[in-house]
């Protein structure tokens, strides 16, 4: 025999290693055919995407969830109806929890329980990106904090690092929920696999087609604004320079890019 015991173990180990790493290459294929030239021409571009949310205007809609529904539908976010396994990209949180360091006992009751839209802040200095051991979550040149679902190992370090609770983990198989509840899957956006982290992506897949984020498009109250913060003539810059705005936990140095108007 030309192979001893040690040699065999070495080869067997390498084979197993190779087999494991191959499984990472099963990238999803986009279902819509778009030529590269077409994409470049149509896509919305920015140096620093940001969002402004008018809390008061939003509240006047009394429990409207159009933006949430739009987002969760286009992104195939399952609704497990239990807080344990819950996945959410954008949702209503009360004022006292969204800005809980700002809360005090003499706040008007309606303000304290005021629903505030929360989502990933696409921080300029994102702690989730800093801690990720595989660069599965990364920051794009336009500021969007994105996820590579095929690289994520599901360690949930990013979840621990996020000061806003914006990240959800797939505790269960999401596709099964769509089958069991007979909910249609949006074929133009991939579903996730079990065991990876997901969150709002500022609709990167829509921007590339020249569309604004689904939540902003769905908002009929004109309470959400999206634009390039690096462009001095943009709508978001104009609003921020003319009205008082706050951000969540600015003291942590994450430089969140969701601005709230009161």
């Amino acid at each position, binding site marked *: 025999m030309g192979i001893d015991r040690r040699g065999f173990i070495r080869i067997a180990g390498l084979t197993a290693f190779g087999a494991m790493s191959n499984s990472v290459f099963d990238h999803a294929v986009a279902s819509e055919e778009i030529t590269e030239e077409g994409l470049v021409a149509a896509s919305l571009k920015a140096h620093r995407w940001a969002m402004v949310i008018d809390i008061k205007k939003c509240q006047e809609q009394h429990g409207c969830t159009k933006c949430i529904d739009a987002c969760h539908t286009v992104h195939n976010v399952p609704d497990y109806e239990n807080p344990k396994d819950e996945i959410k990209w954008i949702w209503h949180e009360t004022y006292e929890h969204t800005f809980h360091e700002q809360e005090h006992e003499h706040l008007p009751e309606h303000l304290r329980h005021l629903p505030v839209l929360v989502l990933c802040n696409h921080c300029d200095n994102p702690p989730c990106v800093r801690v990720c051991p595989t660069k599965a979550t990364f920051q794009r040149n336009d500021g969007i904090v994105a996820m590579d679902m095929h690289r994520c190992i599901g360690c949930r370090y990013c979840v621990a690092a996020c000061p806003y609770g914006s990240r959800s983990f*797939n505790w269960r198989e999401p596709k099964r929920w769509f089958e069991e509840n007979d909910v249609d899957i949006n074929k133009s956006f991939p579903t996730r696999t079990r*065991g990876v982290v997901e969150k709002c992506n500022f609709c990167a897949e829509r921007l590339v087609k020249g569309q604004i984020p689904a939540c902003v498009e769905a908002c009929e109250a004109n309470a959400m604004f999206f634009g390039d913060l690096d462009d001095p003539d943009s709508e978001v810059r104009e609003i921020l320079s003319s009205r008082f705005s706050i951000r969540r936990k600015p003291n942590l140095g994450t430089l969140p890019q969701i601005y709230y108007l009161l």
Partner: protein
Amino acid sequence: MLEKAFYGDKKYWAWLSFLALVIFVGLLFYLRQFNEGLTITGLKRDVTWGFYIAQFTFLVGVAASAVMVVLPYYLHNYKAFGKITILGEFVAIGSVLMCMLFIFVDMGQPFRIVNVFRYPTFNSLMFWDTVALGGYLLLNIVISRVTLSSERKGIAPPGWIKPIIIISIPWAISIHTVTAFLYSGLAARSFWLTAVLAPRFLASAFASGPALLILIVYIVRKVSKFDPGKDAVQKLAVIVTYAMSMNIFLILMEIFTAFYGNIPEHMRHFQYLFVGLDGYNTLVPWMWTSVILAVVSLILLINPKTRRNETVLGFACFFVFLSIWIDKGLGMVVTGFVPNPLGKVIEYWPTFPEIMISLGVYAIGIFLITVFYKIALSVRERIA
């Protein structure tokens, strides 16, 4: 040398069979987790790390504590530890392997774990922790193998092993420091965001590890003719005493800063641990048990009369181990998530499958440590 693991009495085989059974049951539950996902654990959207990661953290400490026998023996030429360094190193090997398994069972996509090496990310502490743990495992395997086989042949260990042993000393400190950095570098979690976390981890490790080693020595004396000696045990007891005192001291420092400084974000976590918060108090009885065990053990350890009594010392060490296990293996990790960053209290408790999988991992570690000990003790008994 390895063949010595295959010759043992009935008790040895019965013990290994029992452990194999626990491993098998753990494996069955892991297969269930593998098929259904981490949803079968008590983990949830707001508490994403729990029992697995807490056991990992606790065991990194046990692994690092081998340095408490290696350092006095190799750096200070403290001869009484000559016979137990190998026992400490084997506990370290078993513990590091358990650490790796606990990380593995916690992963959402366990087979993608190779991505950590395919896309090495230097700004992630998790990458460095992987490097530190892997290196420590390798160092201890090489050191224990070389020193034991020289001992068997009745010759002095080769000269090249000495620098490797010296490197293993700061390396042991590094594994628990980097593990603490995983937590203490997160501005989002005020409970962990403290410079004292790494020193505290080390102090609790240097108390719980040697306490465990003393208990192991008691067992070794019962099941074999090998005895590392009364001196070694007493010296270990002094180490446990100092380390446990430091550990309590550092915890009190944390509480002082949080409460005298009156920082709500820091206080709320301690309130959750010791008195409960917003009506939630699952961990309260555990934490007070840990406190009582710590106080009783310190009284027994600091008093020379009780410390020198080997029976009392055994109890004191058991209390130290249990107290620190509750603190690190139950409280420390989960409380980072409670209350969550939005100020909501959402509690966590491990599920039955989660505990069975954890027991399975512990059984794998104890199985390996038993086999390693069998080999070392056979070598020792033959020489003696």
